[in-house]
């Protein structure tokens, strides 16, 4: 593989290998309970509670604009009352998890990379190691567990707020008949849609925490290094989320068909 050394493909493969090793070390550490529950709770507060405003605004306005746009198209073929059904399925299986993850990656992924990157350049990570503490146990595992817990909760919140906001816009502003709209929504939305959204958000939580931690722990020296790590954490986690979303949709929808959900 020496012919790849120094090329972008070689560096990309090296990064992929290192992040895989980090994931393996993190999962092994999490399974042996070497982390502190207090640290996990603090990270849930930081990732979950502190992201409320971002997620609520994103969920609400996505639901509202989706309701308006769907209504404008469906109104032409007299299918107004199918509007909420489209919004509900979209919010649960696609927009809720993806947009929540993208917003959280911008806020939390960047913060994780900047915090760990600063700790690295000021030798705080080395100080941890000299105090006989593995950086993965102390820094990565609590963030991964918290992100895996917080993202599904935030996503469900985003789904609910998006659907509620679309109901307000559809019924209150655009004049859709509420009973039929509600009935259609319940008819075409399934438990599997919500399930798919929650599974996706769990995966995205892992992606945000792992890429943020990896970029922070491997950042180069100096303020420029921290800045680059922060930017790369957001860009790489966003792209990974979007690419994974396509494949997860294919796989999870197929699984739903196979198991008759």
């Amino acid at each position, binding site marked *: 593989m020496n012919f790849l050394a120094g090329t972008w493909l070689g560096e990309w493969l090296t990064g992929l290998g290192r992040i895989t090793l980090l994931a393996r070390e993190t999962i092994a550490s999490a399974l042996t309970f070497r982390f502190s529950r207090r640290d996990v709770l603090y990270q849930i507060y930081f990732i979950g509670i502190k992201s409320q405003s971002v997620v609520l605004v994103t969920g609400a306005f996505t639901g509202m604009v989706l309701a308006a746009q769907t209504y404008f198209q469906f109104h032409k073929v007299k299918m107004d009352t199918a509007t909420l059904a489209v919004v509900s399925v979209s919010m649960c299986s696609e927009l809720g998890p993806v947009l929540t993850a993208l917003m959280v990656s911008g806020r939390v992924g960047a913060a994780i990379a900047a915090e760990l990157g600063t700790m690295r350049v000021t*030798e*705080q990570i080395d*100080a941890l190691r000299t105090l006989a503490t593995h950086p993965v146990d102390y820094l990565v595992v609590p963030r991964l567990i918290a992100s895996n817990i917080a993202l599904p909760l935030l996503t469900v919140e985003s789904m609910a707020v998006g659907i509620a906001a679309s109901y307000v816009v559809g019924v209150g502003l655009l004049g859709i008949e509420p009973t039929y709209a509600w009935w259609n929504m319940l008819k075409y939305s399934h438990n599997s849609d919500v399930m798919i959204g929650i599974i996706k958000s769990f995966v995205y939580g892992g992606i945000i925490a792992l890429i943020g931690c990896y970029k922070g722990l491997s950042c180069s020296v100096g303020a420029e290094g921290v800045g680059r790590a922060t930017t790369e954490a957001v860009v790489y986690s966003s792209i990974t989320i979007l690419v994974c979303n396509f494949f997860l949709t294919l796989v999870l929808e197929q699984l739903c068909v196979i198991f008759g959900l």
Partner: protein
Amino acid sequence: MIEVRGLNKSFGAQPVLENVSFHIENGESVAIIGRSGGGKSVLLKHIIGLLQPDAGAVLVDGENIVAMNERQLLRVRRKFGMVFQGAALFDSMTVAENVAFGLRRHEHLTEAEIAKRVAAALDMVDLPGTEDKNPAELSGGMRKRVGLARAIIYEPQIVLYDEPTTGLDPIVSDSIDKLIIRVRDHLKVTSIVVTHDMRSARRVGNHVLMLHERKIHANCTPEALFASTDPVVRQFVDGVADP
């Protein structure tokens, strides 16, 4: 006992250490001196396993730490305390939380016991009553003292100091030197001090290793070093720039 055998380290194409070998007995106080950028801190980081050499071995009480992975190293590192050049205090924690970090992670003590040990460690470094301060509120000298309190609170056998007096005025430097000697004598620890301050090296070391051109150039007592007629040693001791 710490033994370094044939240590080699390069960063890219730049060699930093070449065939470095020495040993340090328990309870010894060793100063590692040399020019800035000469690999002193790199050598210190190899002794505690923060860096992996390209070749060679580092034996701590007979165990080769070069062959160990990060998890195995954690056990060996409990024998060490390290004071960093920039103190490396955790800036999201108070002084007390910084000092108590090792205790909280590795020993099952009550909050009252932890508070007592923290107060005793801060007393030892002449910083009583600073428990609730944040690292940002402390001067450079105070930060290094807190770093030392954090390093010694769980009573390690070996304490490593990376440039403990760099960037400090002569009076504060003198107080840090006295502190290093006090810790060495009270806790009976092995001390390894990396410095380019000759006064400091003479005071805290009962043995001096001089690193020059990537190799150990001198390995002797401070008195022998100051009396040396070797031109490289003399240039460093007298602080004379290249012609």
